[in-house]
């Protein structure tokens, strides 16, 4: 078991180094930004008549920077704060902690993307299995063509297309808000119904644009497993089709679980387009509105959060693989 922990330990250290690298990146990004926003903010505060010391304290809590300290001290201060999950304060939301805003945005992204991911994964791998098993027939060719086609459509085009068809041409679904503002939020049936109705199109956009990749990957994986000796051997030993299918499925799914875990990590940042097009207040939407409002602490915080999710997912994917594949040494 020690080898296993060593491996995981190594992964966690690598992840921490990566988070350090990304936070350094955002630090220097803000610091070397044209017109240095930190210094500008400090100057405005002083001009507004706030005493210099108090102005410095304000800037410090906002950006996590101490303007008059040497660069390396500012840097360590910033990284130290990041490691304590203190991402500074938002500018456009007048001093609300960035972490607070991000935690509020996260459920929107997570629920929408997780549902979309689950739908596209399930439909995609089913289509992939069929496309592979029936690869010498019209059905298989058709599924391959469909997957390739959908895989080729970028997410924002899919989202725009769906929005246009189902909200403008056919007014089936509402557009442009996470829920109907006329219904007061709460744990009530109309409110949840409204949430669901508004979530259909974003989820569909995410699911349809993800479907192609799952189907193509699964098709390739199943095709490769079908050519493996043990599947033919099982058939010639008279093993029942259902048991054989289990052999095929488990072996073909193995590489896909890793990709799935990574997708969960990448999902936080993968939906800027969908969230923007459908006005869905998740993390991607937050990045985009923060950018428009020049709210750099909020934007950098969201970016750090998105990257951290990917790093954590990489570690989990590695762990999962060790658990699922007996061929990886665990002793």
């Amino acid at each position, binding site marked *: 078991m020690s080898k296993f922990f060593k491996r995981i330990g190594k992964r966690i250290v690598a992840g921490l180094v990566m988070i350090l690298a*990304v936070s350094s990146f955002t630090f220097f990004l803000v610091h070397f930004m044209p017109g240095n926003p930190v210094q500008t903010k400090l100057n405005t505060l002083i001009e507004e008549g706030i005493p210099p010391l108090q102005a410095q304290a304000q800037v410090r809590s906002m950006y996590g920077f101490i303007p008059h300290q040497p660069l390396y001290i500012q840097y360590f201060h910033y990284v130290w704060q990041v490691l304590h999950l203190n991402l500074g304060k938002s500018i456009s939301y007048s001093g609300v902690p960035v972490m607070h805003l991000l935690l509020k945005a996260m459920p929107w992204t997570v629920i929408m993307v997780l549902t979309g991911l689950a739908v596209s994964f399930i439909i995609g791998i089913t289509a992939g299995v069929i496309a592979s098993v029936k690869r010498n027939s019209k059905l298989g060719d058709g599924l391959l063509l469909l997957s390739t086609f959908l895989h*080729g459509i970028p997410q924002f*085009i899919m989202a*725009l297309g769906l*929005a*246009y068809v189902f909200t403008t041409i056919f007014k089936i679904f509402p557009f442009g808000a996470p829920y109907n503002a006329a219904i007061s939020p709460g744990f009530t049936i109309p409110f949840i119904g409204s949430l669901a109705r508004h979530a259909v199109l974003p989820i569909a956009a995410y699911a349809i644009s993800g479907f192609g990749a799952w189907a193509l990957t699964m098709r390739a994986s199943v095709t490769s497993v079908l050519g493996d000796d043990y599947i033919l051997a099982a058939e010639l030993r008279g093993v029942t089709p259902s048991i054989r299918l289990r052999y095929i499925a488990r072996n073909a799914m193995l590489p896909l679980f890793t990709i799935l875990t990574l997708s969960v990590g990448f999902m936080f940042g993968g939906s800027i387009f969908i969230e923007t*097009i459908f006005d869905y207040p998740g993390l991607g939407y937050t990045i985009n509105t923060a*950018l428009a409002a020049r709210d750099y602490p909020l934007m950098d915080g969201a970016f750090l959060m998105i*990257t951290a999710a990917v790093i954590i997912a990489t570690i989990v994917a590695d762990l999962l693989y060790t658990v699922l594949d007996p061929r990886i040494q665990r002793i």
Partner: protein
Amino acid sequence: MATANLPTSHEHIKPWTPPTFWSIAWKALRRKPSRMLGLGILVFYVLMAVFGPMLYPANLPTNPANIYASPSWAHPLGTDFEGTDVLALIVTGSRYVLYSAGLAAFFTVSIGAILGLVSGYFRGWPEAIIMRIADFFLTVPGFPLLVVLSTVWNFGNPVSMGLVLGLTGWAALARAVRSQTLSLRERSFVEAARGLGLSRRQIVFGEVFPNTAPYVAMHFLLAITGSIYLEVGLFFLGVVPFSTNNWGVMLNLAFSQAGAMYSTRALPYLLSPLFCIMSLTFGIVLFLGAVDEVLNPRLRSV
């Protein structure tokens, strides 16, 4: 070629010559009509980008009296919210899209191939450093990174756009080229080249690189489609300030300014750039099949 003039009656004694690259390429293209279609689409858009803008004045005329016109002979794709001809916008906008996507692919492939070759062949500390940086770019989600970068770098012009996409997009190729180089450097022909006393640069670029070239060429075409999505996406979100007209800008204006989502009259205005992006990338994907076959001899039919 001199042999081409030989009388045909001698054909049966003509020694067998290996087919030229172009004859193989032509054969691969002809094997499937979809590949010819792909090539046709590519040529069409390249011609549009190179010569199209010459047909229009530098500043396209606006006509407040004729906004959101339906398609007609005068305006085959209708007009936009200022009364400008949509077809003219598409044609003049194509140059930016193709030019910057081509540059982006060029930078991606150059950086990726060189860093991959260097880290795979020289090993040691260059490899360690390059691969750590590659890890960074592979981990950090690409599009949010571009959004954040846009705050310090106004990369709206085509060259900067190409450069920024290249600088952030090389990591996957570098990893692939590195692992190919790692296996190639142990092969006998590379060892022979070392034995002959060729310089390391000659070995890397003369012996190792040609063997990774097929993969790099494939990646070039894929990088073009990827870059088109990214740049159009950046303009669509309004992350990068508009300097020139292009398809992404059109989408942005159709979506956020023209209110295309709330009325069907702007349909041609919204649909035209969408159709162009889709058909161009499909052209590339179809064409890719032929390139794959030419570069991977195993796929060629007997």
